[in-house]
């Protein structure tokens, strides 16, 4: 018996030695296999390992767990079961929550190994849930070792015995732990790889499926990335852009190339994003408007990795803008023509003055050189006056032609007082006709502004005519139009035109600035709306208010010319 015992003991030692060797070999083999394993094969391999270790330990079931980051639940990620173990014995193939097994959770989460050689030791109250569960599915004995790998969720490896109890010797625990660590490492790595793969796909999707044409240009001028939208917008493929880095510049219309050239592409990393608009000629010859926004790519350590840019096809928006602008210009022009029509009597008078003087002077001159008079000094003076009046007439015609011309806004340094005076002269006859005296209160120290003379004149003419008309039904004695210029604030000057008329009814206060809104019979209803858009184009504001006593005041502000502050 002793011999038998010794024999057994020796055999056991031999077995243990062989086993230990086998285990070491398997371990090193597994380690290298796992390292080279592609992520999609890991799961199968993990189950192989679980099978191997389960068989080695003669267990009925082996499994890997992974906790969530809160450690309130865990999930069986991989499972191996020995033949004959009924799979439906497992009641929780998936999620296990903390509340179901508080004792088990408490131990694992605190890094304590759970080693149960006989489930009867669980029969106390604190582990009663676990005890009942094991009894229900017939587990006799089990071990679960928590495995914490840095910056990874808590994992665990475990073995179950269904048909027998097991003492779980130290050696088994150690081997299990080593296997667990290898597997957990692999799973974690796989997890990270998967995460980066997902991120890669996500970023690629974000970039590739952007409606705009995106690119990332290296500082060398080549493209790191070009989004497929380039084809939709330009007709050229990604490949064409990558092989010809100058392609983008090449397809910009020659007129707009300067915009591109002057666009800041410097070498800094702190440049603000800037945007420009230019036209390109598509591969099929179509012209498209592009809005280009770009900014340097800055690395976390302050380096620079080229430029990221986004190009948007804004052709439609641009077309609408151009149409709206043209429309506005047409309206401005129509409004001006209407105003000029109203001023025709004044204009004719303005022109008649020098013509009358010229005719009189010429007739006088004829008399001075003929007959007995022969006053050549006088004739000399007359001729000079004729020249002067001729110039006066031409300047009026020139003014009229300018007012009738269809020019775009042209901003020059001007003094609003001069414009007011000119306009008052121009509307002089009109206001006199309507028996409206005009009083000027001009600030002599008014700073210059940047403005378009014709358009500003148009605004003031309109305001004067409106104010004059507003007093048509008012007693002649009360009629009075006051034009005031003053410094409004540090950066603006103000012009106000006040009448003593009927005022503006509250209900019209807002609508009078809308296009085609009019309270005048026969009015076009574009005057004030044009005035406002002209003033807004100057960067100013135009508004109306009723005077405390009677009548209304329409005022506008325009910014002071830069380089001149009040």
């Amino acid at each position: 018996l002793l011999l038998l015992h010794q024999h057994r003991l020796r055999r056991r030692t031999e077995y243990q030695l062989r086993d230990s060797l086998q285990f070491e070999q398997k371990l090193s083999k597994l380690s290298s296999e796992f390292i080279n394993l592609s992520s999609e094969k890991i799961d199968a391999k993990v189950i192989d390992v679980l099978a191997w270790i389960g068989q080695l330990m003669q267990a009925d079931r082996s499994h890997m767990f992974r906790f969530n980051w809160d450690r309130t639940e865990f999930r069986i990620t991989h499972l191996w079961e020995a033949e004959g173990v009924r799979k439906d014995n497992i009641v929780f193939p998936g999620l296990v929550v903390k509340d179901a097994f508080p004792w088990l959770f408490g131990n694992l989460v605190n890094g304590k190994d759970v080693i149960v050689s006989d489930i009867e030791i669980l029969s106390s109250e604190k582990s009663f849930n676990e005890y009942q569960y094991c009894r229900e599915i017939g587990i006799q004995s089990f071990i679960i070792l928590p495995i914490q790998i840095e910056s990874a969720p808590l994992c665990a490896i475990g073995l179950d015995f269904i048909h027998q109890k097991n003492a779980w010797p130290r050696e088994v625990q150690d081997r299990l732990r080593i296997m667990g660590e290898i597997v957990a490492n692999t799973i974690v790595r796989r997890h990270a790889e998967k995460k980066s793969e997902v991120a890669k796909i996500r970023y690629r999707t974000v970039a590739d499926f952007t409606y705009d044409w995106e690119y990332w240009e290296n500082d060398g001028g080549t493209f790191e990335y070009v989004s497929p939208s380039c084809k939709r917008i330009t007709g050229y493929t990604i490949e064409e852009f990558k092989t010809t880095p100058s392609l983008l510049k090449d397809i910009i219309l020659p007129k707009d190339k300067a915009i591109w050239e002057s666009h800041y592409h410097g070498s800094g990393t702190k440049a603000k994003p800037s945007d420009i608009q230019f036209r390109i000629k598509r591969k099929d010859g179509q012209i498209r408007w592009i809005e280009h926004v770009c900014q340097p790519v800055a690395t976390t350590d302050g380096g620079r990795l080229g430029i990221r840019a986004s190009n948007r096809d804004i052709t439609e928006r641009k077309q609408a803008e151009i149409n709206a602008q043209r429309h506005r210009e047409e309206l401005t022009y129509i409004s001006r023509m209407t105003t000029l029509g109203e001023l025709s009597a004044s204009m004719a008078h303005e022109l008649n003055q020098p013509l009358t003087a010229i005719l009189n002077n010429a007739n006088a001159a004829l008399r001075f050189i003929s007959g007995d008079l022969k006053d050549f000094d006088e004739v000399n003076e007359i001729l000079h006056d004729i020249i002067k009046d001729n110039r006066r007439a031409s300047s009026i015609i020139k003014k009229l032609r300018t007012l009738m011309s269809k020019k775009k806004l042209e901003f020059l340094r001007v003094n609003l007082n001069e414009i007011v005076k000119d306009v008052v002269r121009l509307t002089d006859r009109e206001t006199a006709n309507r028996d409206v005296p005009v009083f000027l209160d001009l600030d002599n120290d008014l700073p210059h502004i940047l403005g378009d003379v014709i358009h500003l004149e148009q605004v003031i003419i309109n305001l004067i005519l409106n104010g004059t008309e507003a007093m048509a039904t008012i007693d002649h004695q009360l009629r009075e139009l006051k034009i005031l210029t003053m410094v409004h604030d540090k950066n603006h000057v103000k012009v106000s035109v006040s009448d003593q008329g009927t005022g503006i009814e509250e209900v019209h206060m807002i609508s009078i600035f809308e296009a085609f809104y009019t309270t005048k019979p026969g009015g076009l209803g574009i005057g004030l709306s044009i005035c406002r858009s002209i003033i807004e184009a100057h960067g100013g504001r135009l508004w109306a208010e009723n005077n405390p006593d009677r009548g209304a005041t329409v005022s506008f502000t325009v910014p002071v010319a830069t380089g001149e502050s009040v």
Partner: protein
Amino acid sequence: MTEIEPTVFIVDDDESVRKSLSRLLKSAGNKVETYSSAIEFLKRNPYEGPACLLLDIRMPELSGLELQEALAKKNHTISIVFITGHGSIPLSVQAMKAGAVDFIEKPFEEQTLLDAVNLAIKKDRSAKQKQADIRKIQKRIESLTRQERKVFTFVVSGLLNKQIASELGISERTVKAHRAQVMRKIQAKSLADLVRLAEKIQDYLSQD
């Protein structure tokens, strides 16, 4: 009797026009005075001699029409020729109704201006002459005594000496003496002459 020289007064706010008008009229032999505003002209004393006021219908502050009105109020008689711009027909009509001699539209031919000015001076002369005459007769009438004036009134109404004597309760002889005195003071050569002078100042008398 030498007449005070006719003068053209120009009131126009536009310096060029004013100066050219002045020249042209001077070259045509007129005496000219210029004013740049209606108010300035109003400060001037009424001109005794034949005159023409050449007036721009539209001017700042006081317009031509307003000046016309102001002169009328002051009983300042002067023939006005308005200078109008294009399209001021309604104003011109108003001016004519208020007694203007003419209006000329800018720009105008020399002859149009000179004709208008000459006509205005002519009218002004006769108007002033008439005024002077009336004033003269008025003075003579004022020199009559109460009784003489009564006799004068009855005589021009066609009453006979006898009837006058009865009306006044005096002798026919006394009426005759008064009548001779009236004829002398009024400087009438005949009864017809006396009646004509009386007609001239009929308005004055009726006002009296």
